[in-house]
C-alpha cells in the first residue's frame, strides 16, 4: 500500500514540477522543452513500476518496466534475429521497393494528364482502405518468409507515397514553370531542376508516413504465418505463452526501430529541404 501512496505522491509532485517549469520564465528555452516531456515520461515509468509492485499485478497482466528491461537485455540475441527478419528483410526491402515504384509511377502519372485524372481518385480511394487485409493473400502467394512481408509493405506504402509525390509535382507555380521555359529548359531539365526539388517536402511527407506503415505491415503480416522468427511471430507466440515481458521487450524494439527509422527520414528531409520555410530557423 505504501508503494501505491508513494506512486501517487510522485505523480502529484512531478506534475507540480512540470506545471512550474511550463509556466516559468524560461519555458520556451530548448532545455526546458526537452526536460518537461522527459520528466513526464519518467514519471509514468516510475508510477507504473510502483503500482505493479504495490498492487501485486500478476506478470500475465502487466510486467513492471524493470522486468521488461531485464528481459530486453537477456534476450538481445533473439530480439536481434527478430529485428533482422522483420525490419531489415521485411520492412526495409518492402519500403525501398514500394516507395521506389510509387515514385516512378508518380513521374509517369504526372507526365500524362489522363493518367493523373484516372489514377489519382483510385489511389486516394485505395489509400483509405484496410490494406493490411491483403496480408493473408500475399502470404499465401509468396510463402512464409520475408518476401511475403516485403510484398505486404510494398502494397501498403505504394498509394500514400504515390498520392503525395503526385501532389508535390504539382506544387510549382505557372510563373516558375514559365521561367524555366524562357531558359529553354525541356521536360527533363525542368523536372530535375525545378519540379522535383519543389516536390521534396511532399515526397518526404509520403516517406515519413510510409515508415510507420512499413513496420505495421511487416509485423501484422507475420500474424498470418512466418518462419520461427520475426517480431510479429514472437509477439503472437509469446502472448500465447503468457510471456508478456517478452511481448513488451518486442514492443520496445518496435518502438525504437520505428522512431529511429522515422528519425533518419526526418533528418534526411532536413538536409534535403533546408530551403523550405518549415525547416528554416
Amino acid at each position, binding site marked *: 500500500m505504501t508503494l501505491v501512496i508513494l506512486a501517487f505522491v510522485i505523480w502529484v509532485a512531478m506534475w507540480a514540477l512540470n*506545471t512550474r517549469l511550463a509556466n516559468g520564465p524560461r519555458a520556451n528555452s530548448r532545455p526546458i522543452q526537452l526536460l518537461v516531456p522527459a520528466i513526464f515520461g519518467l514519471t509514468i515509468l516510475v508510477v507504473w513500476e510502483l503500482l505493479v509492485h504495490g498492487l501485486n499485478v500478476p506478470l500475465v497482466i502487466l510486467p513492471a518496466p524493470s522486468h521488461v528491461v531485464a528481459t530486453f537485455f537477456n534476450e538481445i540475441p533473439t530480439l536481434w534475429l527478430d529485428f533482422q527478419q522483420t525490419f531489415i528483410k521485411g520492412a526495409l526491402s518492402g519500403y525501398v521497393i514500394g516507395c521506389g515504384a510509387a515514385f516512378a509511377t508518380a513521374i509517369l502519372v504526372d507526365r500524362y494528364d489522363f493518367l493523373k485524372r*484516372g489514377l489519382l481518385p483510385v489511389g486516394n480511394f485505395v489509400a483509405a482502405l484496410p490494406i493490411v*487485409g491483403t496480408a493473408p493473400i500475399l502470404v*499465401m502467394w509468396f510463402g512464409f518468409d520475408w518476401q511475403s512481408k516485403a510484398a505486404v509493405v510494398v502494397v501498403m506504402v505504394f498509394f500514400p507515397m504515390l498520392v503525395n509525390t503526385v501532389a508535390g509535382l504539382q506544387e510549382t507555380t505557372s510563373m516558375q514553370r514559365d521561367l524555366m521555359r524562357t531558359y529553354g529548359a525541356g521536360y527533363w531539365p525542368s523536372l530535375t531542376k525545378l519540379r522535383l526539388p519543389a516536390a521534396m517536402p511532399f515526397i518526404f511527407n509520403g516517406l515519413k508516413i510510409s515508415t*510507420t506503415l512499413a513496420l505495421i505491415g511487416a509485423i501484422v503480416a507475420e500474424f498470418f504465418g512466418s518462419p520461427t522468427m520475426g517480431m510479429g511471430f514472437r509477439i503472437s507466440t509469446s502472448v500465447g505463452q503468457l510471456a508478456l515481458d517478452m511481448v513488451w521487450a518486442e514492443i520496445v524494439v518496435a518502438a525504437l526501430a520505428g*522512431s529511429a*527509422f522515422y528519425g533518419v527520414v526526418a533528418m534526411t528531409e532536413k538536409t534535403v529541404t533546408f530551403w523550405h520555410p518549415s525547416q528554416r530557423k
Partner: protein
Amino acid sequence: MRKIFPVLTVVAAIFAFWYAAVPFMNVKETLTGLERAGAVVVPDNPIERRDASSFGLVLNNSFAIPATYAQERPRLPAPHQVAQDLWKTTVMKKVTSKRSLVYHGWITLSATLLGFAIGTGAGIILAVGIVHSRAMDMSVMPWAIASQTIPILAIAPMIIVVLNSIGIQGLVPKAIISAYLSFFPVVVGMVKGLRAPDAMQMDLLKTYNASDNQGFWKLRLPASMPYLFASLKIGVAAALVGAIVAELPAGGARGLGGRMLTGSYYGQMVQIWSALVFAAVLAASLVLLIGLAQRRALKRMGLT
C-alpha cells in the same frame, strides 16, 4: 463525363490485368486437377511442371485456360468468382447465419464504431486539455507525436489476451484497440484545429471582454471543425483496421478479420477476397459518411 472516363479506364485496366493474371497464377493447380480427370497435359510429369514457368505452361496447355477461371480453390480468384461469393454470402444468406458476411461485417463494424466513439471522445478531451494547460501541452504532446511513429497495431494481440485473462471478452477489447488507433490522429488534428484562430481573432474576443470559456465555445471550437473532420476520416479508417487486426488473435473466427484468418488456414482464397472487398466497401462508406457530414456541417457554418 470528363472526370469519370479516366477513372473508369483505370478501373477497367485493373480488371483486365486481373483477368489476364488469373491463368498464370492458377495454371499449375488446374493442370494437376485436369490430369487427374484424364486430360493430356504438357509436360505430363508433375515434378517437371512444378519447376516449369507458369508462362510456358499456359502457352502449352491453352485448352486449360477456361478451367483456370473456375477453380474451386484458386490461388487468384477471378473477379466474377469473388463477386459470386460476395453475392452468395451477403444477399443469399440470412444475416444471422454464421456464413453471412453481413453478420461478420456487423461484428467488426460494431467494434469499430464503439472504438471510434471512445477514441474520438477521449482524443477531443485530451486536445482541449492540451490547449488549455501549458504543462499538459509540453508534457504530453511530444509523446503523442512520437507515438505515431510506433507500430501500435503490434500490441493488439496482447491487449486481447490480457483483457481476456481479467474476464473481458467480445466487443470491448476490439473496441479498445480501435479506440487506441483512432485516438492519436484526433488528438493531433484537434490540437492543431483549436489553435487555428490567429492572434487577431483572439484579440477581438478579448476586446469584447469574452471569458476563456466563451472564447472556447464561440471561436476555438468552431474554428477546429475542418481539422476535426479531416482527422475523423483518418481515425475511422484506422479504427476499422484496428478492429480487423484485433480479430486475428481472438481466434473465434468471428468478424471480417476472423474470416480472413480462417480463409488463410484452409486455403480459401475466395473467402479472403470477399472479406477484403467487404472491408474495403465498409471503410469507403464510413469515410464517405464522414465526408458528407463534413460537407453539411461546414456549409452550415459557412466555412466552405
